């Protein structure tokens, strides 16, 4: 397919390769940071070509650039594009029975902007004074020309603006596609949970990405045009601005961004635990409703990132309550997943293992986040590695594992070939365990007081004893990096010689698996399917009896023999109604 094809599947593949490339780059930068914390100031093996003056050892400016670019790349150019650009673009139209996205040319434009942003990020590495080095949040005054004068910071700021514009465009496209382009019969109550997750996250994208665009535009004007929106103190002339304004704007976007990254993951987890427990999703409506509640609350909690900025204690308390409130719908969702697993015929496929891993690390990240939502515990933990461990578990590890759950699940549909199941399982299990090792180590170091961006933490006496802990954590990180080789080998092998996948290798009923070949043709469906039931019609007694299988397609009609059987999906969630209208959801052995 052409590079400029407006087919959503081609655009998805563009994002996939771009996202995986940036994931590799961001991961390598993470390993360099971990090296510095394990062996501070020692030459990094293989880096002498990039840092000849120090023979490969990280200097303080190089270190700040490395951790800045790691965060920026992972969030704006790797995980978000993989979740939305690759999986979202590919799955969303197929899962709702659409022939494509509502605005195909808009998705091509969005990909073009993402590619431009990516090119600017790469270019920033080779300009004088290096790339951006003001942290991924680009807080002023650090990010103003007074403190980061090079061209690199400007290029990266423009790159973030490009990524933001791209995210806005695909967010808008997804929302309109779900509202307007669903197949006949695809009611809101029959949408797969993955679509719900993508939909809610897209709503957040279109609402809050413009806030980031505004903050970044003002910052860019401060850098290029001499304005003083965020320049203050001695650097300001004629009465400067206020860097705290940027912090408010940034986190007004930044906190919803956490949910932008996790909502699609939650949707996938919800679907996969149902598919691979061979049971309808327990509390489908509650789960979708809980995701909606989280979406609504996520825009109201941002200021817990600013508890230490000198805000009014009254405001602090308000934001604390709102923040802690968000855990309630999250718990509802979690319990629904556990109830789906309960007494199900659980099949530990690679996507299921990745989904369970995502559940586990997100649970750990969520629990450790409670202490950051409460003012009293946030104040001492603020700025420590505890924060880093927490957010890496939630928006790093959980999203990463969800990306791979989705990739292993939809890969046969994308490319017509199934990945090697053994390698895939080894990859996701080792990654999940090592994620806990790495970010658990960070939580422990943070609890002991290690601040997050120290070049050499051990110059402080009270942190000297953390060196062995950090070395163990770094060892886990290097192993985690090595574990990704399993995926690369699997990917290359599968694309060249992988087993040809059938149209429905997972034996599930959603439209993309039951109504389209692998890979689907341009236009996806001919004719467009008429949807009859929800996405999780698994282990239905009447289907077992008539068809002899434990699943039925969303648009599949039962043969005449089933006419006398109880009606399917009167509940709208794929369950059948038994005698007296009682929903049944029993699994099969």
């Amino acid at each position, binding site marked *: 397919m052409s590079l400029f094809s407006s087919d959503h599947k081609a655009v998805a593949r563009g994002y996939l390769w771009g996202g995986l490339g940036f994931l590799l780059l961001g991961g390598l930068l993470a390993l360099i940071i971990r090296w510095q914390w394990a062996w501070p100031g020692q030459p990094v093996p293989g880096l002498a070509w990039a840092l000849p003056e120090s023979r490969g050892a990280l200097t303080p400016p190089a270190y700040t650039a490395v951790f800045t670019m790691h965060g920026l790349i992972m969030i704006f150019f790797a995980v978000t594009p993989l979740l939305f650009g690759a999986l979202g673009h590919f799955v969303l139209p197929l899962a709702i029975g659409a022939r494509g996205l509502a605005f195909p040319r808009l998705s091509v434009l969005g990909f073009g902007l993402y590619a431009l942003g990516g090119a600017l990020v790469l270019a920033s590495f080779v300009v004088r004074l290096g790339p951006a080095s003001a942290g991924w949040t680009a807080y002023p005054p650090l990010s103003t020309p007074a403190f980061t004068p090079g061209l690199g910071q400007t290029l990266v700021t423009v790159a973030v603006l490009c990524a933001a514009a791209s995210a806005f465009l695909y967010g808008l496209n997804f929302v*309109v596609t779900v509202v307007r382009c669903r197949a006949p019969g695809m009611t809101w109550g029959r949408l797969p949970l993955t679509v719900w997750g993508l939909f809610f996250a897209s709503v957040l994208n279109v609402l809050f990405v413009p806030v980031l665009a505004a903050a970044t535009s*003002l910052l860019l004007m401060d850098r290029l*045009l001499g304005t003083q929106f965020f*320049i203050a103190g001695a650097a300001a002339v*004629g009465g400067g*601005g*206020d860097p705290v*304004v940027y912090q408010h704007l940034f986190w*007004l976007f930044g906190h919803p961004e956490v949910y932008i990254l996790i909502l699609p993951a939650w949707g996938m987890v919800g679907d996969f635990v149902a598919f691979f427990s061979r049971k309808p999703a327990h509390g489908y409506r509650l789960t979708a409703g809980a995701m909606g509640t989280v979406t609504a609350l996520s825009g109201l909690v941002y200021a817990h990132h600013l508890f230490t900025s000198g805000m009014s204690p009254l405001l602090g308390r308000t934001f604390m309550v709102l923040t802690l409130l968000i855990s309630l719908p999250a718990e509802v969702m979690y319990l629904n997943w556990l109830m789906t697993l309960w007494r199900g015929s659980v099949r530990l496929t690679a996507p299921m293992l990745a989904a369970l891993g995502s559940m586990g690390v997100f649970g750990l990240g969520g629990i450790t986040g409670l202490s950051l939502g409460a003012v009293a515990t946030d104040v001492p933990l603020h700025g420590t590695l505890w924060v880093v461990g927490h957010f890496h578990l939630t928006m790093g590890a959980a999203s990463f594992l969800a990306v791979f759950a989705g990739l292993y699940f939809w890969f046969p549909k994308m490319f017509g070939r199934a990945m090697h199941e053994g390698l895939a399982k080894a990859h996701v299990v080792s990654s999940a365990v090592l994620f806990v090792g790495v970010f658990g180590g960070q939580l422990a170091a943070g609890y002991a007081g290690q601040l997050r961006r120290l070049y050499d933490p051990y110059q402080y006496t009270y942190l000297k004893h953390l060196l062995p802990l950090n070395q163990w954590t770094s060892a886990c990180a290097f192993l985690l990096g090595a574990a990704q080789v399993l995926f690369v080998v699997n990917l290359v092998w599968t694309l060249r010689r992988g087993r040809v996948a059938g149209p429905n290798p997972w034996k599930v009923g959603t439209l993309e698996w039951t109504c389209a070949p692998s890979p689907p043709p341009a236009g996806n469906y001919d004719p467009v399917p008429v949807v009859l039931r929800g996405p999780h019609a698994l282990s239905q007694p009447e289907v077992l009896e008539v068809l002899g299988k434990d699943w039925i397609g969303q648009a599949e009609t039962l043969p005449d023999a089933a006419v006398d059987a109880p009606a399917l999906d009167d509940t709208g969630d794929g369950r059948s109604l038994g005698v007296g209208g009682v929903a049944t959801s029993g699994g099969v052995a």
Partner: protein
Amino acid sequence: MKTPVPGLPLASSVSHEESATRWLGTVLGLAAWTMFFVSLFFAVGWYRMREPWPPLPVHLLVLAMPGLSLIVGSVGLHRAASSVFIGSDGARRLLRVLKAILVLGLGFVGGQAWMTHIAWWNHHLRIPDDGVPASAFYGLTALHALHMLAVVTGVFVSAVRLRRGVDVRDALRRHALGWHFVTVMWLLLFAAVYLP
């Protein structure tokens, strides 16, 4: 010498479904993009709460003048988008209206440039010497004008397509929405930044 303009059919050539989808996309997109300007005005509000906002050294009437063309253009484009233009005569009339609207749009951008020019050269309102008020005045005026240029470009493309015989009435409805959006944002800009 006038070149003939192909006529417009009675009904729009875009299907109702497609038109409704595009309309929804435009409404949602513009509604969401309001957050961009809300964020800018939040920043200005923060600064205005911090210390008194000095009056700009340009008369309020001069500041308001470019906005008039915006408001007139908004009304004109709305009427053009909602009126029925049929046949070759209708297309020619619509093209004339679009030309007038383009003049108004470019007039607005030109007016903003003229006003900021006056402030810069005649009234010594300098960046960065005049701090945040000057930054907000030039910065937000420029960001708003960029949005106006995007809308004007859309109208221009529609005019060119109309001249080539394409039915652009559906696109004009959406451009009108964009113009209204920019007009409302200008009113907010006026209140947030230009008023002392």
